[in-house]
């Protein structure tokens, strides 16, 4: 039963990683933009949550009411005012501009909050656990996070395949030039897409801040985890990103079971192995 336990813990951890990854997956899928600052935005969201909690007394979950709109507006403005201008210059401008943003966020947070650790306190739910048949204990919090990930991806699928906006997103992702010829304002669409990606990033950030201590330098590893989940799952598929996150989580859980110091490393190794054996991931969909 020990292995089942590891499997379940890892799979639930995957829900976390999927939440990290959705924003990255969206901005790449629609704009072909890889946001190097993605992990830093997750951490930024945690800090925004912290400020919201401190100034309003709301619980971290409820602080999302503030954090989500703030991050959405930030994302929309950033894409509209800055990132849109990097999209036509080839590979380097978006990469280096988001790299610059990453450095600015990390050092700005460092300047503003110091190098200290923080954590958001949600209370009892953090340690509550559920007993499953078979004698396996699962934390309620990881279950909640996993459920949020599944609901979030479900909502995104609905948006993409059931709405006019989603249809426009898919068209722009296929062929941005022809989409313009159909009357779609690409610039606004990209800004909207990035804003929605930030919504997921905001949720991921707050949920992550409850579970783990964070500091200004916590961004890069989050980017790497998100990235690994996306690549393992395959570019262009949201459910694939969930599977990718779960595979990553399970690999990490297996590594941690052998030696706690090996957790992150095990995830990296699994990523590299899959990259070598199946470079387009498990469920690839995007054409480039």
């Amino acid at each position: 039963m020990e292995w089942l336990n590891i499997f379940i813990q890892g799979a639930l951890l995957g829900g976390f990683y999927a939440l990290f990854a959705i924003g990255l997956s969206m901005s790449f899928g629609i704009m072909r933009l890889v946001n190097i600052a993605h992990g830093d935005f997750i951490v930024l969201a945690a800090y925004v949550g912290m400020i919201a909690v401190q100034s309003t007394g709301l619980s971290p979950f409820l602080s999302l009411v503030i954090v989500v709109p703030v991050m959405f507006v930030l994302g929309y403005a950033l894409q509209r005012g800055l990132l849109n201008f990097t999209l036509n210059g080839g590979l380097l401008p978006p990469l280096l501009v988001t790299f610059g943003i990453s450095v600015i966020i990390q050092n700005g947070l460092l300047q503003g909050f110091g190098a200290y650790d923080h954590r958001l306190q949600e209370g009892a739910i953090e340690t509550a656990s559920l007993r499953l048949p078979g004698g396996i204990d699962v934390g309620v919090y990881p279950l909640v996070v996993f459920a949020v990930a599944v609901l979030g991806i479900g909502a995104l699928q609905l948006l993409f395949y059931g709405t006019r906006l989603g249809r426009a997103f898919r068209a722009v992702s296929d062929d941005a030039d022809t989409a313009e010829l159909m009357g779609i304002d690409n610039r606004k669409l990209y800004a909207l897409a990035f804003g929605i990606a930030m919504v997921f990033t905001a949720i991921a950030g707050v949920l992550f801040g409850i579970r783990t201590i964070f500091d200004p330098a916590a961004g890069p590893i989050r980017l790497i985890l998100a990235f690994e989940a996306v690549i393992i799952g395959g570019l262009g598929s949201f459910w694939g990103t969930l599977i990718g996150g779960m595979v990553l989580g399970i690999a990490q859980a297996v590594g941690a079971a052998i030696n706690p110091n090996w957790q992150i490393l095990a995830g990296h190794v699994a990523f590299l192995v899959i990259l070598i054996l199946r470079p387009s991931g498990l469920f690839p969909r995007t054409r480039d």
Partner: protein
Amino acid sequence: MVSTVEAVRVERATKASRIFALVAAVSLAALVSLPWWGDAGDMRLIAEMAYYVALAQLWNLLAGYAGLVSVGQQAYVGLGGYMLFYLTGVWNLNVYVAVLLAGPFAGLMAIPVSFAVFRLRGAYFAIGTWVVSEVFALLASLITVLGAGSGLSLTVPILQEISPDRDTRDTLLYLMTLAAALFVVGIVYLLLRSRHGLALTAIRDSEPASASLGVNTFRTKFIVYIATAACTGLIGALIFLQKLRISPEAGFSINDWTVVVIFMVVIGGIGTIEGPFIGMLIYIVLRELLADYGTYYLILLGLIAIVIMLKAPSGLWGWVIQRYNLQLFPVGRRLVPTRSQESAKS
């Protein structure tokens, strides 16, 4: 009606480059003689500038010419450093031998790495190289013989192999670093001047087009990646020989070895040899000016990089080239009519 083709020859140097060569020679003489007119602090600063220029030229070669934007070159800095400490500390090799072996070792490690990361393209390649670097850092922190989390230190006997006298040691380390940096810049320059450099420029401008012209793009990129890794490893060994200590965090620090280097190249002018020099100077000047302001200078660097990418993507030197068509390191080729044809006019 048939028109005659005049005989031409290919000329490499420009007037500006000839002047610059003179200026460079004089400056080099000054730098080499520094130990005799400067102090230890001066030598440390120049050595730092030297190894940053070398790292910047190497990153520029990868990203600006081969189109391989790596955010993981710090892996090879750390590998070079660790190899130096390991070979001298555990295998008791002579320190000079260890430094010379560090580079090739890093180059060797780059081979399996390339199998993994070359499957990725563009920005995904960039993050992939970063993951690889993280793997090396994690491995270093877990392997006890490498000092695990706390790292390794250079013992006094090893240092004394360079020289028992402190001043001589400082001078020798300085000259070694200068020599290594010159070597790296020299290799980059010669490579870009050669037909391989032309191939690289072609790949940078259009990979499909250059492939259709017979350029073996994979092999070219592969060789450049391995060579860059080896040179980066050499520089890494020298960096940590000066620092006397290495740890996973310091050895594989993305902030120290990649962020700063990328900013230098981007601000100075990517895809040019002159650019990294300018970028390095700007970085050092800014750092000295803003030394009291902590992390603000990194924020400023980030802002400058963003502005440059949007307004002047070819960096400061790229702007100079566009305005004045200057080339100090002659890598281009110009067609010049030969004198004998000028008189033969009908």
